[in-house]
């Protein structure tokens, strides 16, 4: 176990190094000029520009800048965001606290609905219900999250006016000031948009695994012992579907992160996804690098948790001493 953990940590360090180098290189190669993006419409003199470049250290060679940045990171200093003029760590912290709520809600929703729909589809295998769920999932799976987001906005905000058009709180209020009911109202649509694609994936997988379980010898035996369909699902089906479900659910964290960027953009939800887009468009390299590292870490943690849970949940690994 200790060896495995050490290996995981080593893998993580390698991953973070690779991510930071690639992100840095991409930012270097991008046509966006940081100073231009920063000053926007204003025009400034060449001297002024040189001053800003010197201040940000932009005229040093790329390798030097990367090494400097990496050295600071090792000391726990993620640098300062150029557009927010705040330490990168605090920008990420603030915005992530909004994003994590959004992601958590949609993660739970896609897990719960995915499991339920998958079970129902499998229980009524081959029926109209099963087919309807399958078609629904395939449709959803092939539609991009932002498109779904816009449809939801059109229906629930524009046409019906039930839910707000965007942001995380009513206009004129910070999120902290807004009452809980408002905050919930603001999170529903983006969370829904974010969860829908996840739901279809989980539903289809759960359905597939449950169908496999229903065709197994132990399902036959359960029937021969007088267990009804739902008794089988409760007593045997669930425990056999749970393992792949756990892997899938935690593995979905990476897609969730990617999806949140789109959902937050569509719903102008001021979370980390939104900031990611801003930092990329404005060439805020320290912030962009910081977010890249942070998201890599987040996804890595998700996969690690999935692995650990899997080995705890599967008796064949837990008590059999087999490794994953």
């Amino acid at each position, binding site marked *: 176990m200790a060896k495995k953990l050490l290996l995981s940590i080593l893998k993580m360090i390698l991953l973070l190094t690779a991510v930071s180098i690639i992100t840095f290189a991409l930012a270097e190669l991008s046509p966006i000029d940081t100073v231009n993006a920063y000053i926007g419409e204003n025009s400034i003199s060449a001297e002024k520009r040189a001053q800003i470049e010197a201040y940000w250290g932009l005229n040093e060679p790329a390798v030097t800048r990367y090494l400097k940045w990496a050295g600071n990171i090792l000391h726990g200093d993620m640098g300062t965001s150029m557009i927010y003029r705040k330490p990168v760590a605090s920008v990420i912290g603030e915005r992530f606290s909004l994003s994590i709520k959004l992601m958590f809600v949609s993660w739970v929703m896609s897990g719960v609905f995915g499991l339920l729909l998958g079970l129902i589809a499998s229980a009524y295998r081959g029926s109209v219900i099963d087919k309807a769920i399958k078609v629904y999932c395939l449709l959803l799976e092939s539609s991009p999250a932002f498109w779904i987001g816009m449809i939801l906005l059109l229906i629930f905000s524009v046409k019906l006016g039930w839910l707000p058009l965007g942001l995380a709180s009513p206009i004129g209020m910070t999120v902290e000031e807004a009452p809980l009911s408002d905050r919930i109202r603001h999170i529903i649509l983006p969370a829904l948009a974010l969860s829908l694609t996840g739901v279809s994936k989980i539903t289809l997988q759960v359905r597939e695994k449950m169908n496999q379980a229903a065709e*197994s*010898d*132990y399902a*036959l*035996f*359960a*029937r*021969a*012992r*007088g*267990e009804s369909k739902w*008794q089988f699902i409760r*007593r*045997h089906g669930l*425990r*056999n579907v749970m393992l792949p479900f756990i892997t899938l659910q935690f593995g979905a964290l990476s897609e969730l992160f990617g999806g949140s960027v789109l959902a937050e953009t569509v719903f102008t939800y001021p979370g980390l996804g939104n900031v990611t887009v801003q930092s990329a468009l404005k060439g805020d390299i320290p912030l962009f690098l910081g977010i890249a590292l942070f998201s890599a870490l987040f996804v890595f943690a998700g996969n690690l948790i999935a692995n650990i849970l899997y080995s705890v949940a*599967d*008796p*064949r690994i837990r*008590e*059999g001493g087999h490794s994953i």
Partner: protein
Amino acid sequence: MNKDKIILEVEDISVSFRMYDKGLSKHDLTVIKKLNVTVHEGEILAIVGASGSGKSVLAHAVLGILPSNASVGGEIRYCGKQLTNSLRKEKVGSEIIMIPQSVTYLDPLMKAGKQVRGLKGTKQQLEEAFRRYGLDKSAEKKYPFQLSGGMARRVLISTAVISDAKLILADEPTPGLSEDMAAETMRHFRELADQGCGILMITHDIEAALKAADTIAVFYDGETIDCCTADDFRQGRDALKHPYTKALWSALPENGFLSADASELMKGAL
């Protein structure tokens, strides 16, 4: 107990599977053509027959657990009543019990004790069954992958004896068991039969069948070709009618393995 009371009566049943070939064409694969068996109260009926002769399919047909592409013809009666799906709902699992052929019928992720108890078994019944089949108490908490082949087999048998069975369909219950355990199982079957149970035991092992069973039905290629008492068998070759059964008799060790290969003989006979 009434030795004349019929518990299970299978009359001229046939089973075929609808097979889908490449593309849209399909054909029916008939695996049981015309099977007849009768099990009385207190009787142990052994079914012998080559691999693939349709023994397991028969048991599954009685239990109503054939796959959906199977179609069944003929009649199955349980205690005089036609065994319909609604009657099955009532009886299968409580009175009609199966001991499956392989240990893969155990749920790989459920502990043995819980599996043996099933829906209705009590703790006492579980402990009693485990004691009887020499299973340690610690085996209750074990998953199938932690059991040896013989232990898993005994767990399977325990699942059956925990109920108030009237009819036990045992699909090769003894392979993998030690001689003692196999003998204990047979003793137990006899005990259950004496209490009024009917037992249909599928086996490859004619010797074992002869020791434990009252009646022996011989299957060949989806048909019951012979049905005789164990006594007929013991009396010797001349008491047996069908050439295939005679060949089976000759192949027994104490009869000197007169191995006129049974299936060879069969080809000549038909």
